[in-house]
C-alpha cells in the first residue's frame, strides 16, 4: 500500500490544503509577540496552542479536503469500475484518510517545532508536553475520517465546504458551552494552563484512543452503505468497540468546578525558584525560573518601598505554589514573559493588605467617596514611582496630602491603614 499511499499523497488535494494550513499556522505562531503572548515560554500553553489551532483551523480544512477527495469517485465516475474491484470499501476509505492524515501530521509537526522553538528561546527548562499534541493529532484524524465518510456517502460539491464549516461551527458552539459532555468527545483544549497545571495524562490518552478508534470506525461506515464494494469484515467491530468504551469513559469523567477537565494541579516542587531581597522574598514555579531576574528586581523595589511598614505582605508565592509562611501572598503571573516593571506592579499589588472576604468597602469621603483601599494602593504605587490611577481631583488631592506628609507620618499612616484594612475597619485619618 505504501506506493499507492505515496501516489495518493502526491496527487490528492490534501497536500495542498495541508500546505495552506501550515502557512496559516506558521504565521499564527511565528508572528506572536513574546511580550504579550500567553504561551511563549510555557510548555503547557505552547502545546495547547498548537492543539487548538491544529484542531479548529487545520482539522476543519483537512476534513473539507478529505470530503472533496472522497467525493471524487462520483465526480470523476471512477466508481463505475472501482466498485467492481475486490478491494473493500474500508481499505479504499483508509487510503484517502491516511493520505490526508499524514499530510496533517507533517503540518502539525512544523507548527509544533515553531511553538516549542519559541518557547525554548524563553524558558530555562526543557519540558515539552506531548499528550495534548497527541490528542490533537488523533482529533484531526477523526475530523478527516468524518470528511472521508461524508464525501463518500454524499458525493456532492457542497459536502466539502459544509464539512469544514461544520467543524468550525461545532468548536465555536463548544467554546461557549465548555461544560457540555459533547465537548469532551470533540476536544479543542481552549484552556489556560499556567505552570500550576499539568496535563491530565489519563484523560488525554483515553480521548486519544476515542478519537483514533472513532476515526477508524467512521472510515468503515461508507463501506457498509455503499452498494457494490465489498463490506468490511468483523475486524471493523474492534475500533467501534474501543470507541464506545473510550467515548463512554470520557462522558462519565467528572471534574470539580472550576478545575479544567483536561489538566491536573501540578505537584508541589521540591525546591521552588525563590529570590530574597532584604525582608522581601518571592517564590516561583521552577518552570518560571526565567522570571527570577525580573522577580529579584521587583523584590528589591518592593523591599525599598515597604521599608519599615508593617501589615503589608513581604513574602510571595506564585499562584498554585504552597505558601512559604502564614503571611505569604499569592503572586499571580498571567503570562510567561514579564519585565521587571510588570513584575513590580504585580508584586506591589500582592503586597497590599487584604480585607476579610466578607468585608464591605469603607468609602473615604476625603478621597472623593472611593474605597479607602484605593488610596492605600495609590500611595504604595506612588512610593514605587509606578503610575497611580486617577480617580478625580479630590482623590488626587488626598493622595498628594499623604505623599507630602513627612516620611515617618506617612509610614505610620500606611502601617495603621494596613492594620485597619485587615480588621475590616476604616483607615486612620489622613496625616496632616
Amino acid at each position: 500500500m505504501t506506493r499507492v499511499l505515496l501516489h495518493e499523497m502526491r496527487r490528492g488535494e490534501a497536500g495542498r490544503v495541508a500546505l495552506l494550513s501550515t502557512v496559516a499556522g506558521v504565521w499564527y505562531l511565528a508572528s506572536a509577540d513574546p511580550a504579550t503572548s500567553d504561551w511563549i515560554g510555557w510548555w503547557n500553553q505552547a502545546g495547547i496552542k498548537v492543539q487548538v489551532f491544529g484542531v479548529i483551523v487545520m482539522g476543519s480544512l483537512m476534513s473539507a479536503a478529505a470530503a472533496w477527495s472522497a467525493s471524487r469517485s462520483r465526480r470523476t465516475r471512477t466508481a463505475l469500475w472501482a466498485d467492481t474491484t475486490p478491494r473493500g470499501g474500508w481499505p479504499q476509505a483508509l487510503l484517502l484518510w491516511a493520505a490526508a492524515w499524514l499530510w496533517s501530521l507533517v503540518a502539525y509537526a512544523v507548527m509544533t517545532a515553531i511553538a516549542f522553538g519559541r518557547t525554548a528561546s524563553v524558558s530555562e527548562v526543557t519540558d515539552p508536553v506531548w499528550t495534548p499534541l497527541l490528542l490533537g493529532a488523533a482529533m484531526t484524524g477523526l475530523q478527516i475520517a468524518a470528511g472521508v465518510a461524508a464525501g463518500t456517502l454524499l458525493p456532492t460539491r457542497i459536502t466539502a465546504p459544509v464539512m469544514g464549516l461544520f467543524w468550525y461551527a461545532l468548536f465555536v458552539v463548544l467554546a461557549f458551552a465548555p461544560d457540555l459532555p459533547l465537548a469532551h468527545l470533540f476536544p479543542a483544549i481552549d484552556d489556560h494552563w499556567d505552570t500550576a497545571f499539568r496535563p491530565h495524562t489519563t484523560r488525554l490518552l483515553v480521548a486519544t484512543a476515542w478519537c483514533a478508534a472513532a476515526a477508524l470506525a467512521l472510515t468503515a461506515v461508507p463501506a457498509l452503505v455503499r452498494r457494490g464494494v465489498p463490506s468490511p469484515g468483523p475486524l471493523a467491530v474492534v475500533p467501534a468497540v474501543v470507541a464506545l468504551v473510550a467515548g463512554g469513559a470520557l462522558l462519565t469523567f467528572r471534574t470539580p468546578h472550576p478545575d479544567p477537565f483536561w489538566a491536573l494541579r501540578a505537584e508541589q516542587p521540591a525546591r521552588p525558584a525563590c529570590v530574597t531581597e532584604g525582608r522581601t522574598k518571592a517564590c516561583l514555579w521552577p518552570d518560571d525560573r526565567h522570571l527570577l531576574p525580573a522577580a529579584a528586581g521587583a523584590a528589591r523595589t518592593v523591599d525599598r518601598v515597604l521599608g519599615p511598614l508593617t501589615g503589608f505582605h513581604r513574602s510571595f508565592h506564585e499562584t498554585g505554589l504552597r505558601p512559604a509562611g502564614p503571611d505569604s501572598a499569592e503572586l499571580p503571573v498571567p503570562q510567561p514573559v514579564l519585565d521587571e516593571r510588570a513584575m513590580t506592579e504585580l508584586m506591589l499589588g500582592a503586597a497590599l493588605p487584604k480585607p476579610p472576604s466578607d468585608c464591605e468597602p469603607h468609602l473615604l469621603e476625603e478621597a472623593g467617596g472611593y474605597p479607602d483601599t484605593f488610596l492605600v494602593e495609590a500611595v504604595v504605587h506612588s512610593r514605587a514611582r509606578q503610575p497611580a490611577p486617577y480617580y478625580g481631583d479630590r482623590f488626587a488631592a488626598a493622595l498628594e496630602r499623604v505623599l507630602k506628609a513627612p516620611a515617618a507620618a506617612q509610614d505610620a499612616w500606611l502601617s495603621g491603614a494596613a492594620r485597619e484594612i485587615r480588621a475590616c475597619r476604616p483607615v486612620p485619618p489622613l496625616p496632616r
Partner: protein
Amino acid sequence: MSVGSDIAAAGTTPVAAVEGATVRYKTVVALDGVHAEFRPGTTALLGPNGAGKTTLLSLLSTARRPHEGTVSLLGEPVGGRARTRRVRERVGVLPQTFGYYPRFTVREFVEYAAWLRKVPRARRVERTREALRLVELEKHADRRMGELSGGMLRRAGIAQAVVNEPALVLLDEPTVGLDPAQRVGFRGLIKDLGERSAVVMSTHLAEDVAHVCDRVHVLLDGRMRFTGSLGELCAQAPGAGRDGTAAEINGSTVEAGYLAVVERNGNEDRP
C-alpha cells in the same frame, strides 16, 4: 475475414454464465430470464439502447445481482462476500464512461487500479509495466491522465482493466468517441485481449464486431434473441446461406444479420 476462424477461436469451457437472470429497475424489466454463456475469445453484446447490455455487464462484473436467476463466474456461482472478492480478482472492467483521476500519472493510476484489483504487492510494479506495454502506453507512463487524448485514455482504461491478468474482461462500448484511426488500432488491442482472456464487449458498431469478435449475443428488450458465431449471425440476413459458411463477414453483413434478428423480433431499432 472467413467465417471458419470465428468458430475455431471460441473455447469450450464457459468463463461466465447467466441462467434465467432477471433484473428490474422499479417497474422496468431490464433483463428478462436471460441465459448466456461466455467462453474464451471475444464475444459481442449487440442490441439497441435500453436492451439490457450494460445491465448484463453489471451482472458479470458482480456490481449487481439478479432478482431472479444465477450468475456463475470462473466455475462458481456469484454470492457471498469472500467468493465475490475472489471472483473479482479475476475480472477486469472498462465502463462506457471511463472515470480517472486527472492528476495521477498513467503509471500511478494503473498501479492504483492494481491495488484495487488486489494484485499482490510484489507483482504490482511489474504488472503495471506489463499492462502499459500491452496497450503501448509505456512512453506516456509519466504523463498525467488529464493530458491524454481520447484514444490514449481508452488504452489506459484497458490497462487498468487487465492489470490483474483477468480471466474475464468486460468492455462497455469501448470504441465510442474514438476517431477512425484510433478505432482501428483499438480493435487490434481487443483482439489480442481475446487471445488471453474471455472478452465481453458491448457495442453498437457492427464494424467493430466484424473485426474483433468470435461470437455474438443479441439482446432486445431485456431478452436474449440470438446467440451464435459471427457467421451464424451473418447467415440471418435475407439471402445469406443458412449455415453461414458462404457469407463474407464484414460490417455490412453483420449489420444485415443483426437487423434480420431485430426485425424478426419486432424491434425496429438499429445498432
